[in-house]
C-alpha cells in the first residue's frame, strides 16, 4: 500500500511540475469560461425551461474540452517510461506491475478531476450572486459532476491503454483521440443506417455520452452508467496491465 502511495505521489508530481499541466488548465479554463458565458448569454436572451447547469453541460465548448483533454493527460503515462528506458529502473525495483498501472491510472484520474473544480466554482459564485433558482437543486448541480467522474474513468483507462501500446507519445495521443472520439460518435450510427434496429439503439445507448449528460444535467440519474463504465474501466485496465507486462518482457 505504501508503494502504491509512493508511485501515486510521483505520478501526480509529474503532472503538477510540468508546464503541460498549466497549459492544459489554461485552455481548459478558457473553454469552460466560454461555455459558461454562452450559457448565461443564451438564458438572458429569452425565457427558457433550462437551467444554467443544463446549458453549460450540453454546449459544444464543454464537449470539445471534455474530449480533447484525455489524450493530453494520458499520452505520456507509459509511453514516456518506455522511451526514456526508466521502465527498467522502475520494474527492477520491488513493485508489482499492477501497482504501476493502478497508480498511473489514479494519478491521471485525479488530475482530470481537478481540472473540473474551477467550473464548480463558477456555479457556486453564480448562486451566491443571487441566482439560486437558475442553478436548480444541489442534486442537479452535482449529478453532472458524478457523471464526469464515471465517464472520465472510462476515457482515462482508454488513454492508459493507448499509452501502453507505444513508446511514442504522439502516437499514443492519436490512438487515444481516435478511440475517445470514435466511441463518442458511436451513437451516430442510428442516424446513418436507414432501418434503425431497436437492438442497435439499445447497444449504443450504453455509450451515448451526450444522452447521459442530457439526463444527468436535468438531475435524472441513470443507473446503467454506474455498471457499464466502471466495469469497462476495469476491463481496459486489465488489458493495459497485460500489454504493459508483454512489452516489458519483450524488450
Amino acid at each position, binding site marked *: 500500500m505504501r*508503494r502504491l502511495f509512493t508511485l501515486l505521489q510521483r505520478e501526480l508530481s509529474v503532472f503538477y511540475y510540468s508546464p503541460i499541466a498549466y497549459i492544459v488548465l489554461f485552455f481548459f479554463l478558457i473553454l469552460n469560461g466560454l461555455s459558461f458565458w454562452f450559457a448565461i448569454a443564451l438564458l438572458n436572451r429569452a425565457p427558457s425551461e433550462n437551467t444554467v447547469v443544463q446549458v453549460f453541460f450540453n454546449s459544444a465548448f464543454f464537449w470539445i474540452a471534455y474530449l480533447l483533454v484525455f489524450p493530453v493527460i494520458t499520452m505520456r503515462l507509459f509511453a514516456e517510461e518506455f522511451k526514456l528506458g526508466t521502465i527498467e*529502473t522502475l520494474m527492477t525495483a520491488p513493485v508489482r506491475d499492477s501497482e504501476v498501472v493502478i497508480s498511473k491510472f489514479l494519478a491521471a484520474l485525479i488530475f482530470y478531476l481537478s481540472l473540473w473544480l474551477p467550473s464548480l466554482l463558477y456555479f457556486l459564485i453564480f448562486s451566491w450572486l443571487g441566482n439560486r433558482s437558475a442553478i436548480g437543486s444541489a442534486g442537479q448541480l452535482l449529478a453532472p459532476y458524478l457523471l464526469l467522474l464515471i465517464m472520465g474513468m472510462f476515457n482515462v483507462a482508454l488513454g492508459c491503454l493507448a499509452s501502453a501500446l507505444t513508446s511514442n507519445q504522439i502516437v499514443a495521443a492519436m490512438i487515444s483521440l481516435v478511440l475517445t472520439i470514435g466511441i463518442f460518435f458511436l451513437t451516430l450510427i442510428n442516424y446513418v443506417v436507414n432501418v434503425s434496429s431497436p437492438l442497435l439503439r439499445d447497444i449504443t445507448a450504453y455509450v451515448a455520452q451526450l444522452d447521459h449528460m442530457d439526463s444527468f444535467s436535468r438531475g435524472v440519474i441513470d443507473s446503467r452508467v454506474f455498471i457499464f463504465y466502471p466495469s469497462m474501466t476495469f476491463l481496459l485496465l486489465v488489458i493495459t496491465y497485460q500489454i504493459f507486462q508483454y512489452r516489458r518482457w*519483450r524488450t
Partner: protein
Amino acid sequence: MKNLNEVCLDPNRIYHKFTETQRAGYIQALALPASRREDARGFRHAFCPITEMIKVEQLTKKYSGVTAISDLSFEVGKGEIVGFLGPNGAGKSTTMRILSSFMPATSGRALIAGHDVFRDSLKARMHLGYLPESVPLYGDMRVSEYLRYRGSLKGLGGKKLRNRVNVVKELCSVKEVENKLIATLSKGYRQRVGLADALVHDPDLLILDEPTIGLDPNQIRQVRELIKSLGERHTILLSTHILSEVEVTCSRVIIIHRGKIEASDTPGNLVGQLRTSGTVKLEAKTGGDDPIQLIEKIAGVKGVVATAEDGWQRCSIRIEAKSDLREDIFRLAVERRWIVRELTQERATLEDVFVELTHTDD
C-alpha cells in the same frame, strides 16, 4: 520454509538460539555439497545457509527465434566481486536483465539470495541493486528527491530513508548536486546518481551493467575505487569492456561469448592458462656475437628476432608458455660479457585472454 531461508541468510544472528541437535544439523548441512542442500521440490535443508548470492541454472533466452543466451549456469558466492565480460551482443545485458527480474527467461531458472527471480520476484528484487546500461533517470526530478523516491519504492521510510539517502549521497559524491535537476547533470554525475540509486536500500547484491561507460579517466578511477570499497560489504556482479579495471577490482571473471560461458576463473589463473607463448625482450650490446645463434641454444626458446640499432641489439625472444628464461639469458649475457640495458618478460594480459576466447574470424 521461506522464513527459514531468510533467517539462514544471516546464520550468526540465530546461531546461538539453536539447540545442540539443531546446531549439529546446521554444521552437517554446511558440509554437504551445494547440490544436496535442496530436495527435489527445491526446498532447502532447514539449517542450510545461503552461500551463493546468484545461482543461475541452465538459463536460456530466445528473442523471436534468436538465441541470446543458451544453457547458462554459474554461481556467485557471497562477498565476491565478479567481472562479467564478453563482446557486444554476447548476452551480458540479457543475463543481467533476467537476474534483475526485468524480463523472464525462456527456460532455466535464476535465484537471487535464494529467491527465484520470476516466481518470487519481489523478494529477489529487495536483495538487489541494479544499474542498467543506459542509466535511465527521471530528468524532471532533483537528485535528493529522486533518491528519496527510489528509497521509498524499495521499502525504506522515515528516519531510515533519510539516513540512507544521506549515506549514498556521500558515498557516490553527489552531495554537491543534490538540489539540481537530473536533466541538467553531466554524464559522470548521472552515472553516480544511478549508482546511488542502486545502493540506496543497502542491497546484498549489486548488478552493474557497464558502470564506467562514458566516464573520463578520472571518473573511471573514482568509480573503480568506489566499487572496490563496496566489495567489502556487498556482492557485486559487473560487466565492463575495460579489462584493466577487471584485473584490479574483480576476484573472479566470467567470460561469455555467443551466449555461452567460455571461462570462469580468477584473472590470474586465466592469464596463466593462456596457451599462447610468452615473449622476453632483451636489449644489449653483444660485441661481435650473433645473439640469435647463442640464444636459440637455450632450452625452451622457440624463436628469436633481432634488430640492430646504434650498436644495440633488440631481441624479441619467443618462449614456451609458463616458463621464465630470463635467468638463463642473464647467465648467457654475463658469460659473453654483453652489456644489458633491458631484460623483461612480457606478460599476457586479460585482454589477450579475452581476445583468445572471443575471437571470431568472420
